[in-house]
């Protein structure tokens, strides 16, 4: 174990160096660029023996990843924002063909207006694509989840592509001390990729990507959904094994001072760091505040979220993406559907859309959200269901 000063992007690259995938096909885009640049340099210096495919677009990046993984090679990539949007079509194909590609997604706002900073609009749009999605709070998590993702994706009962997300610039370009596991240990942990039916098995030729009509398509899509549900069942054991290996305490969700909490914020990624500080501040004032961080967003950890929130008097759900046409952001609708269909007792849950285009989520905003949530707890009613935090209206 050693500690390195790394940005989120370089933490991702360091995990990729240790994994040493057979193939990486990627296209540069801000703020993911550092990953592609640093990994290309590693390949140029012989630190990895990965074959690189310097593709001409993200569409081709994901297309080449699908071809490579199907052929039988462990394959990784990375992207952001417009790049993920351009991959959209092929994201669904990667999942539908059950190819365990691992991708770092450095979350960034979508155009228009064009903006290069962090929000979750890109990742949230891919939430129904059949990819497992892990949202990381900091560079340390990016590094560790990047390694664990290989075992998640390639698990024989899962076989789904996996996206490891981090906040653009806030995480990707901020330098932190990151504890690095030993190369040999990581190599042993990820093991060899042994696909069941690789395309390159010329003695047992298979046809992949066949057309399926009304008689078979539905069954295969059902099997994919079932694999996602199976992932939910397998993930606790995968986390437990990883924790044993890394000495950490990761889980599908992270609860902070939730045991006796009466009001809480539920959020993803880097905002959780600031929120934890405000929880401490409120606790000092005798207010029973708490935080739920959702690390694994797909499959959505319904049972864990319900168990964490079941004794609350009020909850605020934070979304760093807007779904425009629904009642609140994507995380909010997921949380409401989980809580209201699994608990007899109803308590006020409100939604805050924040931080679009990289706008800061500062302490004042979080204090305000907690204050409004405390009011909801007192009145037992939601004062305003969908709120926008930090925008000039």
């Amino acid at each position, binding site marked *: 174990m050693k500690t390195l000063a790394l940005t989120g992007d370089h933490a991702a690259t360091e995990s990729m160096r240790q994994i040493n995938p057979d193939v990486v096909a990627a296209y540069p885009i801000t703020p993911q660029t550092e990953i592609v640049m640093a990994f290309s340099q590693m390949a140029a210096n012989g630190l990895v023996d990965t*074959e690189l495919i310097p593709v001409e677009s993200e569409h081709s990046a994901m297309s080449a990843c699908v071809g490579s993984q199907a052929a039988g090679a462990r394959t990784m990539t990375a992207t952001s924002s417009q790049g993920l949007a351009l991959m959209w079509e*092929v994201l669904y194909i990667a999942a539908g063909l059950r190819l365990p590609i691992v991708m770092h997604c450095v979350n960034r706002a979508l155009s228009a207006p064009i903006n290069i900073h962090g929000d979750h609009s890109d990742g949230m749009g891919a939430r129904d694509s059949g990819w497992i999605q892990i949202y990381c709070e900091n560079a340390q998590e990016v590094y560790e989840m990047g390694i664990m993702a290989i075992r998640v994706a390639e698990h024989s009962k899962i076989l789904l592509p996996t996206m490891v997300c981090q906040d653009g610039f806030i995480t990707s370009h901020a330098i932190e001390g990151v504890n690095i596991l030993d190369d040999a240990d990581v190599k042993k942990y990820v093991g060899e990729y042994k696909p069941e039916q690789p395309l390159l098995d010329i003695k047992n*030729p298979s046809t992949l990507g066949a057309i399926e009509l009304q008689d078979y398509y539905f069954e295969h899509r059902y099997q994919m959904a079932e694999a996602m549900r199976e992932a939910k069942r397998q993930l606790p054991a995968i986390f437990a094994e990883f924790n044993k290996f890394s000495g950490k305490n990761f889980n599908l969700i992270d609860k902070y001072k939730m045991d006796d909490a009466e009001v809480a914020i539920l959020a993803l990624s880097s905002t959780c760091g600031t929120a934890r500080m405000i929880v401490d501040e409120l606790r000092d004032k005798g207010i029973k505040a708490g935080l739920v961080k959702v690390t694994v967003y797909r499959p959505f950890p319904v049972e864990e979220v319900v168990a964490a929130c079941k004794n609350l008097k009020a909850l605020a759900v934070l979304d760093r993406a807007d779904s425009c046409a629904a009642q609140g952001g994507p995380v909010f609708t997921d949380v409401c559907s989980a809580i209201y269909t699994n608990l007899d007792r109803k308590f006020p849950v409100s939604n805050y859309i924040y931080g679009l285009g990289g706008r800061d989520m500062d302490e004042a905003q979080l204090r305000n959200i907690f204050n409004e949530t405390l009011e909801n707890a007192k009145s037992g009613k939601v004062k305003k269901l969908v709120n926008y935090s930090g925008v000039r209206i």
Partner: protein
Amino acid sequence: MANIKELSQIPERLTGGHRLCGGCGATIAVRQILMGTKSPVVVGSATGCLEVSTTIYPYTAWKVPFMHNAFENSASNMSGVETAYKALKKKGKIKDDIKFLAFGGDGGTYDIGLQALSGMLERGHNILYVCYNNEAYMNTSVQRSGATPFGADTTTSPAGKVKDGKDRIRKDLTSIVAAHHVPYAAQATISNWKDLVTKAEKAFATEGPTFINVLAPCFRGWRYPAEKTVEMAKLAVDTGYWPLIEVENGVWKFTSKPSTRKPIIEFLKPQKRFAHLFQDKNKHLLEKIQQQVDEHWAYLERLTSVTCEGEKPSAPKSAPNTAS
């Protein structure tokens, strides 16, 4: 190259029982291309007639590994497959020598897949890309593509009261590919099977990215009787509509040339997609098409008459330059 009897004994890698039309030019093109190598081959295809008609789940007509990803990414998908092969071979996980073959129709190659093809060529993957070119989006009912010729009546460039079919000439994709300075690019068609199989052999044997543009007539879209597919291809060659050329290491060459080119109307007349051009009022359009063919032919004559050193490419290779 093997003679026709030997070729007929090569085991089929695309078997019968698929759902492509009787009289489909693409099927003939694919089978002739596959005769170009005895090595194991992995085949990829863009979305299109070839893919949907040969893979209807749970059946497959392919006796070799076959993969379809999407419409515009046959070249990038196979770039991934070929790179995986390189990576696994380097690690000793694969021992066999495998050839890689990517198919796309003209829609998937000239239009939506052009960028992916360009990337594949520029990166230098060891893949033979074959465009089975039937000059429109046939799988979805004959919409115009960048390969559709001037004047053709398609469902999205229809001939009507004020318009006379497609008003733009087709793209010269073979030249576009050649501009990537790949080691081998060619045009071929199914009527000239010996020429096509020889080109496939050459392409498979070449290290690096190679390309063959195969004119594959489609009786549904071109609207001629189904049994005339090979005849249509032959007329395309004889009229100079589809010149049989190859570009080997930058040297352009006619691999076969009609002694005299037949008038273009002999190619156009049997096809209902050009029927409106034979109305009296459209005589000038027929003349225009003949002029387009002549101009393109002259362009190829210029390209084939010189090499980069200014030498005649047809000069025998053994003849040393002793002039002085």
